[in-house]
């Protein structure tokens, strides 16, 4: 059987634009939240977000490093974040000079939950105010969700599968899971896999606020707004950025002496079949997704040391995920650590599952689990579960589980472990 390992990582997040900076900030309990700066949000119910910081910031993002000037002008932010994170991952994996034979078996599976919302918004205004002849010729391909995979494949000459998942906030996890299957099936030896999002724009914030999904009670105290499992949580804080990993067939990675971070051993997926935005009241979709991943991995809950939870800081969602984990884990719940890094970087929507899978991989590498910030007054349901409040925690980490759930009732779970 073909095994799938992770050999490269790339991150663009509100807490930094390279893997080590982001991870150091996460472990130092920093928050990427602040007042919205990308537009005047004074008339919005939610006026805060976890924005990717500008290049001159201490841990800002410089798009000029890996994205052509011309491409930057033509595409939405999610594509720029995705191209950069993919480039980081390729460099980290030592794959910047692939020969043609290698590139024929190298592909992309980098998706997004929503795609080019800021550009759709702004070009709609151009259409309304100036007419159709002023709409950009790059409008369509600068907004399409599969255009991270498209751009990355063109830039690096990747001629294998070119795929892009769109499953709302499960996108990043599904992208990695699907890409791992393509490698297992022999469609590719190398896959760039992950997700990106960039929807901090008026229509994006307004839309999620109108769906009653965003936090609105902490506009004057942004770093306290994302507080998964805390009694005072009132919705998620929108994040933006991208996470991309290099997945590689194990023998292929070994043969070229690649650094191997982890092995992807379990992938579970399910549908709630219940409601477009509300999670199933018994968390049954989440339960089945995690159970499938465990079964595929051939593990029992005792083997999992860390769960990076979906944990978005919404009143309903956090509770139901925790309930599902509790039922699945039984007595093993007392030994596992479970945290939500959305408390630090917000909810990256289609990027979340990929970014959080990278945090899981780094937890495996460094034998430390990242914290859940702002967990001052845990909900009653949290009793007996280590949610890693406030500070990172050194502990044994043998295998990790990442959960991602999305609108439409779509669920994905990934399990990874160290390779001996």
């Amino acid at each position, binding site marked *: 059987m073909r095994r799938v390992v992770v050999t490269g990582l790339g991150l663009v997040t509100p807490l930094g634009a390279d893997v080590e900076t982001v991870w150091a900030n996460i472990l130092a309990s920093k928050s990427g939240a602040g007042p919205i700066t990308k537009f005047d949000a004074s008339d919005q119910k939610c006026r805060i977000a976890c924005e990717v910081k500008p290049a001159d910031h201490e841990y800002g993002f410089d798009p000029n490093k890996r994205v052509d000037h*011309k491409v930057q002008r033509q595409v939405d932010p999610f594509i720029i974040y995705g191209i950069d994170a993919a480039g980081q991952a390729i460099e980290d994996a030592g794959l910047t000079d692939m020969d043609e034979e290698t590139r024929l078996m190298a592909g992309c599976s980098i998706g997004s939950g929503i795609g080019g919302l800021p550009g759709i918004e702004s070009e709609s205004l151009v259409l309304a105010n100036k007419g159709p002849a002023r709409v950009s010729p790059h409008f369509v391909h600068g907004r399409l969700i599969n255009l991270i995979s498209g751009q990355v494949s063109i830039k690096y000459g990747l001629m294998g599968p070119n795929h892009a998942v769109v499953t709302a906030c499960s996108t990043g996890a599904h992208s990695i899971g699907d890409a791992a299957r393509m490698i297992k099936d022999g469609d590719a030896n190398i896959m760039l896999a992950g997700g990106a999002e960039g929807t901090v724009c008026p229509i994006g914030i307004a839309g999620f606020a109108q769906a009653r999904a965003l936090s609105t009670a902490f506009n004057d105290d942004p770093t306290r707004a994302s507080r998964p499992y805390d009694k005072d949580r009132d919705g998620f804080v929108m994040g933006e950025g991208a996470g991309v990993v290099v997945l590689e067939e194990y023998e292929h990675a070994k043969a070229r002496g690649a650094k191997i971070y982890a092995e992807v051993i379990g992938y579970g997926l399910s549908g709630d079949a219940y409601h477009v935005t509300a999670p199933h009241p018994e968390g049954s979709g989440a339960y089945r997704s995690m159970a499938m991943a465990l079964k595929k991995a051939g593990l029992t809950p005792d083997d999992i040391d860390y769960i990076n939870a979906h944990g978005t800081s919404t009143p309903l969602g956090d509770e139901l995920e925790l309930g599902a984990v509790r039922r699945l884990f039984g007595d093993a719940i007392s030994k596992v650590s479970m945290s939500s890094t959305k408390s630090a970087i917000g909810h990256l929507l289609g990027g979340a599952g990929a970014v959080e899978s990278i945090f899981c991989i780094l937890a495996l590498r460094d034998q430390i689990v990242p914290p859940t910030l702002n967990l001052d007054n845990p909900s009653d349901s949290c009793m007996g579960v280590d949610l890693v409040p406030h500070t990172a925690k050194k502990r044994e980490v043998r295998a990790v589980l990442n959960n991602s759930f999305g609108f439409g009732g779509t669920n994905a779970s990934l399990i990874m472990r160290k390779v001996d």
Partner: protein
Amino acid sequence: MSDTADRVKKIVVEHLGVEADKVTEDASFIDDLGADSLDIVELVMAFEEEFGVEIPDDAAEKISTVSDAIKYIEENKG
């Protein structure tokens, strides 16, 4: 150099992300400046905005160098 030429070159530099000294009057957008057909559509739109001229599709198709653009604008601007 005319004011029109300066403004045209500035737009080309900004849109195509090329060095200013490469934008000579005889430079071809596609062969010398790395543009594709859609980039030219975008450039033509930018010229229309900047100079308040209308460049119909059949005229736009004949604009392949920087000097073609300058010449068309000089002859047609109001």
